[in-house]
């Protein structure tokens, strides 16, 4: 919608007769020098902070040639790090999909005591440093933590294995889906749900046919963001992982290990895979938006 409007606006001066060009200008437009300075500032910033670092990751990864790159990414420890990262994301993202959807649904469509407290709690992982989130789990479930003796007795291990990694990742990525959905659902209100119920739909069908399709795009966007963060999470995962190579090392942790061992090609090769995952995520989102943009707009319009 916004992009479309912008295109229409920028098409305006071009469509006007040349003689009137000087006067046909949007009231909100600045003079030419101001515009150029602002555009240059913006582009320069994006170039320095986003584009250059991203390009350099790929350049560094390929510095030793394609062969070295391939050797680095097919090394056993690297492959196991990739597998672990995908596994953690594959567990953490669906869990947060369910939690986030449930939380957003409860907050946006119902009134209850402690609602604002719940919203604050959902935001907590955003405001707490990921390292602390990791530490909390070690303190609670580690061998010397509160529940340590109890867990040891039953031979349950949370820390320094996949369970701990998943827990820490779920915690850190919890707000992404809920935060994406809450404003969307609140804006949509309860009218459509009430209409569905008055037409005889039960709660489950109402949710499935009315609530869910109305937030499908927000949900997809939230899932993509959540997934990107789940695969890239470093701090919390670092604390609970124990950095056991081939066992509890995720891709971001593996990058750090390789870098500390002065294996720059290896480090950047794995980093470039992570960057590639992020780029694929964004491209997928853009493609979906482009392909189904009409329905997206139809869903958002009133």
């Amino acid at each position: 919608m916004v992009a479309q409007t912008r295109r229409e606006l920028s098409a305006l001066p071009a469509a006007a007769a040349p003689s009137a060009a000087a006067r046909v200008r949007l009231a909100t437009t600045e003079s030419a020098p101001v515009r150029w300075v602002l555009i240059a500032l913006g582009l320069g910033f994006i170039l320095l902070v986003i584009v250059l670092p991203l390009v350099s990751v790929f350049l560094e990864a390929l510095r030793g040639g394609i062969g070295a790159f391939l050797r680095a990414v097919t090394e056993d420890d690297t492959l196991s790090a990739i597998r672990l990262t995908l596994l953690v994301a594959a567990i953490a993202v669906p869990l947060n999909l369910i939690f986030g959807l449930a939380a957003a649904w409860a907050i946006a469509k119902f009134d209850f005591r402690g609602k604002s407290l719940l919203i604050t709690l959902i935001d907590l992982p955003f405001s707490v440093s990921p390292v602390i989130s990791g530490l909390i789990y070690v303190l609670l479930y580690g061998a010397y933590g509160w529940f340590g003796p109890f867990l040891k007795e039953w031979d349950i291990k949370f820390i320094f294995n996949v369970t701990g990694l998943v827990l820490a990742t779920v915690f850190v990525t919890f707000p992404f889906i809920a935060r994406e959905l809450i404003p969307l659902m609140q804006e949509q209100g309860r009218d459509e749900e009430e209409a569905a119920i008055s037409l005889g739909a039960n709660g489950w069908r109402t949710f499935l046919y009315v609530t869910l399709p109305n937030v499908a795009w927000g949900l997809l966007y939230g899932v993509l963001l959540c997934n990107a963060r789940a695969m890239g999470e470093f701090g919390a995962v670092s604390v609970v992982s124990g950095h056991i190579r081939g066992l509890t090392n995720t891709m971001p942790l593996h990058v750090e290990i390789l870098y500390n061992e002065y294996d720059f090609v290896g480090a950047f090769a794995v980093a470039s895979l992570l960057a590639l995952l992020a780029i694929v995520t964004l491209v997928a989102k853009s493609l979906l938006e482009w392909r189904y943009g009409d329905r997206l707009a139809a869903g958002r319009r009133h």
Partner: protein
Amino acid sequence: MTITVDGISKSFNDFQALKGVELAAARGEFIALLGPSGSGKTTLLRILAGLEFADSGRLLFDGRDVAAQGAGERNVGFVFQHYALFKHMTVAENVSFGLRVKPRAQRPAKAEIDRQVNELLRLVQLDRLGGRYPSQLSGGQRQRVALARALAIQPAVLLLDEPFGALDAKVRKELRRWLRRLHDDMQLTSIFVTHDQEEALELADRIAVMREGRIEQIGTPAEIYHRPATAFVYEFLGNANRLRCRIDRGRAVVAGLELPAPEYPDLHDAAGTAFVRPHDLVIADARQSGLEARVRQVFLAGPAIRVELALLTTGDMLEAEVPHGSDLGSLIVPDKLVTLQPTKIRAFPDAA
């Protein structure tokens, strides 16, 4: 279906939205709930639909107590103020929704659903728009989709919340007549909420005027308009001039002028307010007997000439209406001194 509302009350936190409402709708009746915002009319409608539940009181459909039933079990068609169409569904999918979500045993076959949807779309004159999305329709078209969707479940009761509120004046008038015909043809019992007195007067068999959670008066449009029970009803149903008066043995005395108030033969010199509609105020030249007033402004546009006058005794502003083409041309000019003769007043004693 007959509807009986028996002493229904409802509170939201500290706010008492309904205070023991009584209402009975006969089969086939078209009833308007008329009142200002905050009078409880929408709350009452939502309680009838099962979207809100009363704190106390009984609600009977055909003598059956439905107070405990949910919205889906009551078989009530509800048309929302802003239509609440399903944005991600086409018009046809919207209309068929109520049929598609029925339990499998009661659900009609796909072909039967299609047939019914086409019939409904024809009924609301949207037969070629079944494939459109709500965002591609005009306000009036959306309104009719909302109606078709509500009618798809073959309700015996149709409830409408400000059904014409979001439409422009011309479309509103057309839809009003169309809705009335539809109600008669389908033999529905309908209740609609409005704050527009003209809409209520034109459309309804009976009007319930609501104020602060109570029904102030219920009656036919003619009864409500010509015999308002309270000052509030009188003022709500059209323009009204207020005049302070004393009510004394069947007469109202306004600034020395005695007018008949036969409703109160037994009151003795009680303070009250007399109401006069603008078209019941006759302007005459200053030599005649009546209320002395000075013309302030004259508005020539509109169906009648509107004249604003100030009473000489109190300075109160009054409004009178004069038909176009009357021979009062020389009198209705600003600053002219004239007299006013109310041909019809309605006095109400002050609440004790």
